[in-house]
């Protein structure tokens, strides 16, 4: 094989989002060591656990495509959780909670987007600050102790299944499909690609750069609100710590899925498999008896390796 052929082959391989490779290897490990785990019933339960993360990733990948980041998801999820479990809105129905979650996400996301696009503040700082403000608020309102119970009807919906697949997982896959279609079929998707590649060039070709970024953040906020609903439904009792590490995991899964800052080769399904990989990873780590600290280390290593992989690739 000539040198040039080898080079293009290497480039081809580097183009595959790492999440696919990680997913396949983890799957093989499970299949070789614990084949009994690989039945749809058990996997469905594992997948259901990561559904909130999977939904949050949809927003994260959108903002990362426009060279931004959203770390405020933890605060939004916590706030949504507080609305529902504190009894703040007694007797509220499901549509009311959905409205509250979406409205909260919308406002937070729009604020993030405005600060980032108009005021040009560093996205990390804005969204981290917003997150700690929201967390502080919830902790203050609940005086630091878990608020109360989650209404049973949410829990019941969470436990429904279609066939063997839990409905939250189907909901997640459905949202992913919509996002995928939206980005590939709408003009907005082209705007996102343009802004991610070069905000300057996008501006000069007439793309509304600031609006694109604000809309991306607003959508990410709404998606975080929805993730908050699903996350809340997954637990019986409210919490003041729930979902705090989800934004970071979402960043990790997105990078793993081949969406680095400004680059979107991994599309929407790369990050989807990134989340699946995390799901399998937690299973594998649990099987091998790795505790909470070990999981943190592994998460860090994965973020680092995925980022290094992209960094080195974009340099060459």
């Amino acid at each position, binding site marked *: 094989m000539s040198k040039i052929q080898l080079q293009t082959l290497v480039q081809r391989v580097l183009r595959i989002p790492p999440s696919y490779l990680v997913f396949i290897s983890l799957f093989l490990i499970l299949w070789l060591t614990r084949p009994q785990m690989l039945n749809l019933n058990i996997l469905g339960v594992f997948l259901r656990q990561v559904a909130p993360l999977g939904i949050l990733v949809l927003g994260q990948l959108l903002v990362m495509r426009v060279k931004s980041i959203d770390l405020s998801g933890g605060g939004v999820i916590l706030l949504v959780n507080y609305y529902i479990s504190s009894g703040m809105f007694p007797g509220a129905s499901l549509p009311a909670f959905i409205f509250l979650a979406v409205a909260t996400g919308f406002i937070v996301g729009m604020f993030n987007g405005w600060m980032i696009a108009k005021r040009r503040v560093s996205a990390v700082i804005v969204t981290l600050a917003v997150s700690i403000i929201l967390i502080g608020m919830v902790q203050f309102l609940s005086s630091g102790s878990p608020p109360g119970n989650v209404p049973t009807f949410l829990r019941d919906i969470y436990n429904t299944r279609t066939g063997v697949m839990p409905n939250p997982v189907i909901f997640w896959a459905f949202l992913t499909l919509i996002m995928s279609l939206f980005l590939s079929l709408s003009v907005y998707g082209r705007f996102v690609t343009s802004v991610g590649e070069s905000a*300057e060039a996008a501006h000069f070709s007439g793309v509304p750069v600031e609006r694109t970024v604000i809309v991306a953040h607003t959508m990410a906020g709404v998606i975080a609100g929805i993730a908050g609903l699903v996350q809340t439904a997954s637990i019986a009792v409210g919490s003041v710590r729930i979902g705090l590490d989800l934004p970071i995991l979402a960043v990790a899964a997105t990078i793993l899925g081949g969406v680095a800052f400004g680059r979107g080769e991994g599309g929407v399904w790369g990050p989807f498999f990134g989340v699946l990989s995390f799901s399998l990873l937690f299973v594998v780590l649990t099987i091998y008896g790795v505790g909470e600290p070990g999981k943190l280390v592994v998460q860090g290593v994965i973020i680092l390796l995925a980022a290094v992989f992209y960094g080195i690739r974009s340099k060459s």
Partner: protein
Amino acid sequence: MTIIVEMHGISKAFGHNQVLNSVSFSLNSGSVHALMGENGAGKSTLMKILAGVHQPDAGQVKINGQKVNLLSPRDALDSGISTVFQEHSLLPNLSIAENMFLGREPLTRTGAIDYDAMIRDTRRALDELGLDLDPTRLVSTLTIGERQFVEIAHGIEADASVMILDEPTAALNAADVEVLNTSIRKLCERGKAVVYISHRMEEIFNICDTVTVLKDGKLVGEQAISDLTPNVLIEMMVGRELTSLFPARSTMAGEVVLELKDIQLTENARPLSLTLHRGEIVALAGLEGQGQQKLSRALIGQHALFSGQIRVKGVILELPFSGITGIRRTQKLGLGFVPEDRKEEGLFLELPILHNIVIGLHSRRAAIALVRKYRPVVADIMQSMNVKAPNANARVRSLSGGNQQKVLLGRYLAAKTDILVIEEPTRGVDIGAKSEIYRLLREFTEQGGAILVLSRETLELIGLSDRLYVVHENTIVAEMLAIEATEHSILNAALKTDKKAHYA
């Protein structure tokens, strides 16, 4: 006279683009050596190799007879080569003295930076140029002209034996040019060698003694200036009669499509007015940085006008007019803006040709609309513009400069724009593609379009346009027909006002 620098058989390629092809160049002490060539001829690259910014693929550099490897600008400076680049290379948040000694700061016995010595030596170097600047001032507070002199002082302080001046007068006014010429002559008397890159013929004949001409990355020749006339020199640079590059001018001029009235570019600038008709190519000429770009960018809201009125096809654009949404406004009116910096502001280098062209069509549609493929439109554009690429999915980065420029222009043609404002239509484009681009622009106006163009290359403006406005000190000082204009008459028109201003 001794030979200080010898560059032999230098070749350099960036990707597939062979920029220099076995070029040789030598420099004598006490000489001012002009390096001439069109944009993209390779003169900047050759000098960047001498300055240690780029390393050659082949060939060698000898300084004072010693073979050297210049791996960084620092190496070059240590070997006695100092460069004043076109782009700013001083750090704005550091003082003049700190910039002057950055990377080789004198230390006191305790190991601290010796600021006293730095300030003393800086003042001396500035004095030598006759500049009265406080060495502790931050560079960000200096004018562009002052920065240029600080860079020259940097070379003097470092006791460089070779000074490379890349378009040093581009941003200077007439008085500063005189100061610069005096200091260049002083340097020569002390046996230094100066490489002088400029587009202005007059300066070349005024101050240089030798000239080396490059064309398409190859050496054309080296001659004493006294053996040349400007016309011969131009022919050496272009390689043929310049006029053959440009398509015939047009005679028809339709209705007014763009009208600027009583525009004040800045608070103190005199008001200017300008009209552009259908079927016309109008150029903004003049010395560099005199407000041409402010004027072109004001049309898309990127430069805030002080006052005045802009009318596009009869529609008045109210001021102030936002830099954020301005470009979308004018685009809707059919005015396209082709920015100067193709790679940063114009194209999405990592994305396919398809995306680069179609984004111009998509950007005027609603964000939630469904994408259209536009494949036939793009195929049409690529064919009619003769874009050389395997297919529409090729990444723009892989194309040559000329083809990249065609893709950029194609974006506006596809979007059925009928007024184009173009900054630097042929920067970094080889000669063949240049004449193709000139032809395309002319075809565009013949089909009823109108073009406002600006460029650093005055000869290009004269050859390409029908009518010229001379811009100086943020206003229009003269209007002339291109057919009657010469480089000399443009310069005169610009500088006449300078004198008036000085004696007024």
